[in-house]
């Protein structure tokens, strides 16, 4: 009897491997991918971001089966999902909570990168693809927020599309082009729905690019120096185990929101159907846009405000050039940078709060000061980081770090000789 029967699964895999690099790909990029053993739990958030992305796509597709993108029907169709569709309330609350979870995870992921200086060479491209992902995520969330067609949906979209009036020469035309009409209306809703469906798939593509970049430069680590081979361990089983434990913790927090306080993330005004004739007393964006919204409102002139807001999001892209220090290990071994990092977080919190409350004289002033601090933090960085580097080198690096650099160098030469 000739060997015609293909044994499952080994035979099948062998059959595929002769035609497609399946095993070597899995081994190289997934299970065997060398990962620094000293990664802390702050390194769990990239995986969590990927998980939330899948969650959003999965719940989103099922919501789209029952949702109607028509200004006369969309508000009612959401209520239909919440009340009549089997577990429709679960789908919708998972999706609305998932958007917040996505931003939370991404902001922590970015804060990790800022703290440890992982945006520096050779990870600039990785950081920039991340910046692109952030913009895509913001656009997706903004468009998704219009879909329930509540008061905040309508007025938020009106305010934000209106900002494009700041475009030189063709501002008015650009606004009409974006909305598909003179005001936010049915044309806007249908196109936002189409784009809200499309963008997550662009995000998936961008995540692939992000990961290709990651796998070519490898993960950074809390020490900030490239570790010798012996300190890199295969991704599986070590980091799969760690990531799944982190996922469990994440899901507990997420479920508390989904099952017990889902409405804390939905503005009450968004449970009132959109009414173009009646402006809500106070238009607030979702919490994840608040700091940038505060910056927008802090500049008295509209064009200035739009430019400041755009810069406040895009300024992260300049980090590889703004931070001129070569001291490894990010904020951990850099006292000045560490202080600046915490000032930055505090400043974000102040901006977020200012963006949330109705503007008063004091809050506007607070917002302006916080905006000034925000940009100053970035603009002074080239000088402070250089000065800090000189000071650290003159004073001598912390003994811990010196020892680590020496031992890792020793490991590497030992390897090299062999």
């Amino acid at each position, binding site marked *: 009897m000739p060997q015609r029967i293909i044994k499952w699964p080994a035979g099948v895999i062998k059959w595929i491997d002769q035609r497609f690099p399946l095993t070597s790909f899995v081994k190289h990029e997934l299970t065997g991918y060398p990962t620094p053993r000293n990664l802390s739990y702050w390194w769990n958030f990239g995986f969590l971001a990927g998980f939330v992305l899948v969650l959003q796509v999965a719940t989103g597709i099922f919501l789209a089966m029952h949702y109607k993108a028509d200004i006369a029907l969309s508000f009612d169709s959401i209520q239909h999902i919440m009340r009549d569709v089997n577990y429709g*309330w679960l789908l919708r609350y998972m999706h609305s909570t998932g958007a917040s979870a996505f931003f939370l995870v991404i902001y922590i992921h970015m804060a990790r990168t800022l703290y440890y200086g992982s945006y520096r060479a050779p990870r600039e491209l990785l950081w920039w693809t991340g910046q692109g992902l952030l913009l895509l995520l913001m656009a997706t969330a903004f468009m998704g927020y219009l879909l329930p067609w509540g008061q905040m949906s309508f007025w938020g979209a009106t305010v934000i599309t209106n900002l494009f009036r700041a475009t030189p020469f063709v501002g008015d035309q650009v606004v009409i082009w974006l909305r598909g009409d003179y005001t936010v209306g049915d044309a806007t809703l249908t196109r936002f729905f189409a784009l809200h469906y499309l963008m997550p798939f662009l995000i998936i593509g961008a995540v692939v690019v992000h990961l290709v970049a990651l796998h070519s430069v490898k993960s950074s680590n809390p020490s900030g120096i490239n570790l010798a081979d012996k300190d890199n361990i295969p991704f599986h089983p*070590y980091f799969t185990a760690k990531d799944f434990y982190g996922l*469990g913790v994440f899901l507990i927090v997420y479920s508390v929101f989904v*099952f017990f306080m889902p*409405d804390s993330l939905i503005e009450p005004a968004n449970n*009132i159907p959109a009414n173009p004739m009646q402006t809500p007393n106070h238009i607030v964006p979702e919490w994840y846009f608040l700091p940038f919204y505060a910056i927008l409102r802090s500049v008295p002139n509209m064009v200035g405000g739009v430019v400041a807001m755009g810069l406040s999001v895009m300024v992260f892209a300049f980090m590889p050039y703004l931070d001129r220090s070569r001291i490894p290990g990010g904020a951990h071994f850099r006292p000045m940078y560490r202080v600046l990092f915490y000032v930055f977080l505090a400043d974000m919190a102040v901006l977020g*709060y200012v963006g949330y409350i109705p503007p008063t004289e004091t809050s506007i002033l607070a917002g302006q000061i916080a905006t000034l601090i925000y940009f100053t933090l970035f603009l002074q960085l080239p000088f402070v980081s250089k000065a800090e580097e000189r000071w650290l080198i003159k004073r001598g690096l912390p003994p811990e770090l010196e020892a680590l650099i020496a031992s890792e160098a020793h490991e590497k030469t030992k390897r090299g000789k062999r």
Partner: protein
Amino acid sequence: MKRLLTILALCGIASLLHASEMELEKVTVGTDVQTVGRGAEAVMNDCHSCHSMKYIRYRDLVNFGMDRQKVDGWRGDLSLDAPLLAQMPESDAAQAYGKAPPDLSLMTKAREGGVRYVYSYLLGYYLTPEGMPGNHYFPETKMPDVLGISGVTEGAQRTELQGKARDIVSFLAWSADPHEQERHRLGYYVIAYLLVLTVLLYLVKNQVWSGLK
């Protein structure tokens, strides 16, 4: 430390800003069929003439466990699948009161303060020294004092109206979120499951990492 100070400073600002607003009355809604059923009855008698509850059908009331006879009485010749529309056409009501009475089916989720706001608003009517009606929580409201709280001076009668208002908001809270009970029940199971799973995953992770030299 710096962060702590900022948070403290922010809390200080926040409390100053909110001090000027009228404190909402506290109320805990009932979720049992009796309370919600009494609330439904009060709404059908006192609010239904002006307000619709278009996301609720008569059948939903029956399915929730309310008395079939009563529901049949409310709906008259309407189908069980008919939504609870207002008795007065919206345009007439808008004419009469200067403003269309809003749909109530999502009301407790559509106002800052939720259930507590609606409860306070219903009981917030008073008579000015000139004998004009006013409302503490929504001074310019066009809705008349439907519960008649503003004329009440007796303690016992006041308590009775508070009970009625509580029934009403219990019903409104149910209609705004009919799956809340189910959601909480499922939530306990999901979170209990996740807690066990996470502990196991933690142990697995430790087990895996302990093999590392």
